[in-house]
């Protein structure tokens, strides 16, 4: 996992992808752009990390994909969160918040 600006924490990428897809279906590039936008340009996900992660999440049953016409009227592969994916997002969000809280406390101390 590599980023131009900040390196992603292990496991963060999955969370970000799930979050990016929470609002609706996106194709691969769309997911990347959405993450960039959501994090205010802090994270830039490289294709070499993005696509393996998408495929992995799909095989885990958290995403499904369909081929649909894209904004340029060509076919693109769109990913959608499944019900299991939504549950996973909630779980991972809770987990993340717990860790973040812990780290914040540690840094304040």
């Amino acid at each position, binding site marked *: 996992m590599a980023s131009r600006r900040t390196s992603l924490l292990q496991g963060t990428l999955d969370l970000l992808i799930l979050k990016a897809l929470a609002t609706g279906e996106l194709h691969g*590039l769309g997911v990347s752009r959405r993450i960039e936008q959501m994090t205010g340009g802090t994270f830039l996900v490289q294709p070499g990390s993005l696509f*393996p992660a998408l495929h992995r999440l799909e095989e885990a049953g958290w995403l499904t994909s369909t081929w649909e016409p894209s904004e340029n009227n060509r076919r693109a592969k769109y990913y959608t969160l499944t019900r299991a994916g939504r549950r996973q997002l909630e779980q991972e969000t809770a987990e993340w918040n717990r860790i973040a809280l812990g780290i914040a406390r540690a840094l304040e101390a």
Partner: protein
Amino acid sequence: MPRLTRARSTWRNLVHRDRVEHDLDEEMRATFELLVEENTRTGMTAADARRAAALALGPIESVKDQVRDVRAGATIDSLMHDLRYAVRMFRRRPGPSLVAIAMLATAIGVTSAMFTLVDALLLRPVPFRAPEDLAHLWMRDEHGGLVTVAPAVLQAWRECGAFSSVESAEADTALVEFDGSVAVRAIAHVTPGIFDLLGGVRPLRGRLFEPADGTAGNTDRALLSEDVWRSLYHRDPDIIGRRITVGGESLIVIGILSSEFRFPAWNTVIWRPIDLSAPSRTGAAPRARAYVRFTKTVPRADAARIATATARAADASNAQKRVQVDPLAGLVLDPYYQRAVPVLAGAVVLMFLVLCANVSSLLLARLTARQREFSVRSALGASRARLLRQGLAESLLLGALAGASGTGVGWILVSLARTFLPEAFLIRTLNPLDLDARALAFTAGVGLVATIAAGVLPAWLGSRMSGESLRLTDRGATESRGARTLMRALLTVEVALACVLLVGATLLVRSFVNLARAGRGLETRGVLTATMSLPRPAFADAASRTAAAQSIEEQLRALPGVRQATWSFGIPPSGGAISFGDWISDEGRTIDMDVDRYSVGPQFFSLYGIPLLRGRSFDPADPAGTVVVGDGFAQALWPGADPVGRTFTFMRERFHVIGMAREIHHPSLDARLDRPEFYEPFAGVGSYAMLSVRCDPACPDPALIRQRIARGHPAARVVSVRALDDVYFEELARPRASAALALVFAVIATLAAAGGLFSVLTYAVARRRREFGIRTALGASGLEIGSLVIRDGMFVALSGLSIGALAGWAMGRVMRSLQYGVTPGDPVSWTVVLAVLVITTVVASWRPARQAMLVNPVLMLKEE
């Protein structure tokens, strides 16, 4: 991760691989197009937009690879990839792999075939329920002769309580007519209860015999073996109830037995019921060949005693006889097999180890040569696990191919054994000879371990020293120390094992040659012997027998080429009646020994070319009790003295010696078989007699002899007609087979060791080219370079030899009982073995040494 989803993904990824790949391609292409579109919108030119998009996406193939790696079933997928790669490597340089496969296949095939034989001949006694309780009963007379019993005795045994069951089974042969043709098949006449006695016999179709079968009106029943059902009746589905013709009689088939059921002989294929209480068709009183199952409650010795008493009470002719018990399980425990088969099995295991070690060292040499390839791949980012998997895949491919061909080799060998093994071997087992699946699985497993070990090690070494060895191998360094030591150690073991095998094989071959060459004390060439029986009902008295014997003798004498003919009871090499007990000379000397007792006509000695050393042969006028003794017998009773004119006593009977003949020898591993002998005058043909003929220049065909005997008297039954040379030749069948097998194993092992040495040295020379070039440049002569290589080979060979010589000596001592006329330290054998191994080593090192000598320093430097 839900298991079901994952399983579905794995299935999709592996089975619909093309569609998944196509999807991935499409996705990459679509992403690229989207990037281009995005860039164009920011105002780039079309070309710039595409270039920027390509940059942003990065190397597409690498992205795709990363996606493939996370897919479910990626391991299996990459294993398939590794296998495809292995197949490519194999196609590119098939030589070494083929050699390895051939060696491993030979090892697997020969070992499992041998195990199949050992198992059938030695390990499994007989394939029946509780075989240790089964036995065959005979009545034994005072001369050691064995006879069957009258039906009344069988019935008495059934009622005496010593056995849980008593049945009869008599092997026979018969002409079977089918489709207008005839074939000779082994059949058996059995009492209906025999299948219950053996236990666990189930017909494939139809039923077994019932008590009513064989009784009047129900004699025309038959059971067929699956074998004849297949070969003669084309698996006729309606065979049950059909009539077939056996021995000229029409019989109804009532059942089919598995081809695995072999009883009472290994080749019995048709069974007929017999009712012992009814008189037989020929009018002869039927005899029973008794098989019994002991009860657990009566001790064996008591059972035998009860059986003897019962037999004497039921039949007066048994008064002087005793019961002899031949355990059925002991049928196979022939002393020769007990000694020879374990030795041969040990030999085959040694050969198997040599071949496995050789396959390992061959693969090791080849794969170590590819260490550079592994190093490069490791430097390019292949993980160690990935490289190990690659090595594993290549080994698996090799092992699988070897296992498959090994099965083929084993199957062929067992089929050959079934067809070509002398009957003397096969008759020893009632077990079917089928390639043993356990042995096959075991040897294939060991072979696979050997290849995997050899395949994984170089990959491991290659990944361990990636960076460093990349530099080193480029500089043409010598072999890595670990691989070098391992290969030399494997080779030393190979040479040692080959040496042991060679010693064993040479001793066996020498023993066989000694056996074949040993003096027999008679002239075997040009002698034919005919054994016949003149059964009682047809020949009621001595006069009718004498008349028949005269007529038969005249018939044979009239044949062209026949010079002499003489009747006797007892013919070499099987001998006459065996008499054992105390022999007392006229000087009171008492010797306890087993003696061959022949009854011979006056011409017996001249016909067999046995010289009379003292005295004379028989005269028709000689009174009973006149004998000629062999010199061995004379030496035992009257050491150093002339026996002619002396007398001796045996079983209160007095004998008068008129001559001394040279001893007949029976060369055999078992010295007890070479008994001393003495001859009595032939008192006339009994129910069983032998007629020997000497012919010059050539003997008539045995079939012609049979025909003439039948013409001499139609009721005479010919048991066998054989050339004496053939009989002696067959006596040697087993030592010959053992020697030949051992020699084959030893030659395979030696060739394998030589091949191993050759490949390892060739490989070492290739690795040391640089060193040899520098040495030559510094003034070393070609001879010095060559001797370096040969010395390398010799060192391995000599260390192997010294270990092998010690083990071989021990081996020679272990198999002493199989040696005839040689000692474990036999100088000829050892010279041969050492010479063979040293010459083999030099030959195997020769080409690598030449290659080393031909290294041109100038070219070498240019290559650098």
